[in-house]
């Protein structure tokens, strides 16, 4: 499939012997002028003239604007706690993928230009000049970080490499080194409404197809409304839910839950995307612009509530920042969480007993659950601390008879990234994605061996696409990854469902 070796999995995690420069060749396509200019960034696939001064000005600006960045640059004591915590280090053996080394790419430059010791005695404090080689190294290794924040959980000071990566990527984009994948996608959200570039007509056609499919399957007409004014709930979901498998099975699950709960809801063609790649590229302004689309759609449609579908980083942005970015939300019904996660909605329905569930519909599977990094380490799904871990598991257990967790050091806030998050879900980084998936693949294989697990459920579009692609590299099959609401959808028995089937059974018996 490709000219690299898939790493070996083991019964117990192995910390690899370092191999310097093992991933120095890994670097995503640099955005050409076409994609840079749409984002307001300069350059055409390379550094701009006068990039060095601009870089240092931008760093200066960020240090002033974000107190966290200043603290992270100053604080590290090289204790080593983070060194074996990054999935990209564990999968690639490249020491520059140790979180401390990743931070140091920027920290060394920071020291050279912003600290007394670095200005006068650079060699004593590991400060280095900003050169083209240094910048190219940054472009490579800041695109070998999925901004998953696992390292931050283990850092005694709480240094968040994700924030360093975001700052670095934003500076790089503004000196000409923007990443093609993200910079090609974000303008599509502004122009068309979603990352895919799925226009309204195609979206309407796709949703109509889903209505037919659910009806064929259950005999019940479940609606997937689009741009319906006056609906109570606006569902904002990743556009992959319209397009890819197993994502779309999750979308059909949301539709069934809404139908069974008897609420009125709608999708919006304007806000047909939950994802917010502004986070990945470290651009506050892009995060804001993308979020404002949701506000506009909610106002235009006159909804009372906003519910987010299964998308990891979207929920991180929504849960933490939606009010700052696009609030105030005083025009929504204040008696519900703003915004609410679809799992919280479903769990509430399950708790109130308003869904008719037949768990045996999922008896052909034994499940485990992959905590998505942005949900696990940056949000809750419910009011209680830790609800981001308990809510998905309680929902799965309410609709499935067979569930086992993976080993404790790979779940909850210690979860491993799927290997494709943070703007790295692109084919030009396939080697990195396959290698970075190692720790998760290892724990999955172990729970398969120990407990007979057959499928892994996820609540993030990136995780689902990434696993679909990398599972075969590790000897598993692409259909072993499922959406949590796919399981919910399988188990729900809708009012009127099976009536026809019963009749034909009766007819058979009579005959």
């Amino acid at each position, binding site marked *: 499939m490709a000219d690299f070796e898939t790493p070996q999995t083991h019964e117990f995690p192995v910390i690899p012997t370092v191999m310097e420069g093992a991933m120095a060749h890994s670097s995503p396509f640099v955005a050409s002028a076409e994609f840079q200019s749409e984002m307001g960034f300069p350059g055409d696939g390379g550094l701009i003239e006068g990039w060095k001064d601009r870089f240092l000005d931008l760093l200066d600006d960020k240090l002033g604007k974000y107190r966290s960045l200043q603290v992270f640059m100053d604080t590290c004591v090289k204790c080593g706690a983070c060194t074996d915590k990054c999935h990209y280090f564990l999968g690639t053996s490249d020491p520059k993928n140790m979180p401390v080394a990743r931070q140091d790419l920027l920290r060394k430059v920071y020291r050279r230009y912003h600290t007394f010791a670095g200005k006068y005695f650079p060699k004593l404090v590991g400060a280095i000049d900003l050169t083209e080689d240094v910048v190219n190294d940054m472009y490579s290794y800041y695109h070998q970080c999925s901004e998953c924040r696992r390292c931050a959980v283990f850092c005694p000071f709480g240094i968040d490499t994700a924030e360093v990566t975001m700052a670095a990527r934003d500076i790089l984009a503004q000196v000409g080194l923007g990443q093609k994948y993200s910079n*090609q996608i974000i303008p*599509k959200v502004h122009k068309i409404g979603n990352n895919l*570039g799925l226009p309204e007509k195609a979206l309407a056609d796709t949703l109509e197809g889903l209505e037919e*499919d659910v009806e064929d399957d259950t005999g019940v007409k479940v609606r997937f409304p689009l741009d319906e004014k006056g609906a109570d709930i606006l569902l904002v979901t*990743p556009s992959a839910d*319209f*397009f*890819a498998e197993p994502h779309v099975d999750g979308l059909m699950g949301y539709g069934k839950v809404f139908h069974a709960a008897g609420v009125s809801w709608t999708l919006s063609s304007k806000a047909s995307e939950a994802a917010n790649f502004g986070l990945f590229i470290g651009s506050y302004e892009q995060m804001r612009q993308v979020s404002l689309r949701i506000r506009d759609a909610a106002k235009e449609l006159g909804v009372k509530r906003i519910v987010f579908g299964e998308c990891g980083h979207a929920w991180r942005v929504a849960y933490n920042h939606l009010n700052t970015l696009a609030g105030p939300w005083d025009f929504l019904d204040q008696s519900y969480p703003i915004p609410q996660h679809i799992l919280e909605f479903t769990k509430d329905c399950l708790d109130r007993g308003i869904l008719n569930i037949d768990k045996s519909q999922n008896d052909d599977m034994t499940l485990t659950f992959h905590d998505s990094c942005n949900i696990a380490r940056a949000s809750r799904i419910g009011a209680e601390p830790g609800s981001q871990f308990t809510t998905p598991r309680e929902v799965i257990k309410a609709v499935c008879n067979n569930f086992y967790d993976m080993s404790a050091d790979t779940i909850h806030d210690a979860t491993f990234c799927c290997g494709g998050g943070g703007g790295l*879900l692109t084919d030009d980084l396939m080697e990195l994605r396959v290698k970075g998936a190692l720790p998760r693949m290892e724990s999955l294989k172990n729970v398969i061996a120990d407990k007979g697990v057959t499928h892994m459920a996820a609540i993030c579009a990136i995780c689902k696409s990434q696993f679909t*692609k990398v599972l075969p590299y590790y000897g598993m099959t692409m259909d072993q990854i499922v959406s949590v609401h796919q399981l919910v959808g399988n188990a729900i028995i809708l009012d009127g469902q099976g009536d026809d089937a019963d009749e034909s059974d009766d007819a058979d018996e009579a005959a």
Partner: protein
Amino acid sequence: MAAIEVNGKSYEVDEEGYLSDLNQWDKDVAEAMANAEDCKLTDEHWDIINFLREYYEEYQIAPAVRVLTKAVGKKLGKDKGNSKYLYELFPYGPGKQACKYAGLPKPTGCV
């Protein structure tokens, strides 16, 4: 911009080998792209490629996996209306590999 040459005609492609200009597409370039990836285009492949092009013409986007499998199932029989069949034809994924041969832009985002 990179380009591929087929029978003396030059086709502009992006870094990943997708056609820059949909209008430049013809059967020769589709065959050449497939040959370069050790894929021999059969009538079954062409059924998919033609459907992708028709769908794109109407909707300005490649069809969702489910839309594609359903259309294939209707046209070629239920046993072929699933992603397994499509992956057999296009091992790197119908969404990406087949779109490339059909001259369509690569689907972007979390897919």
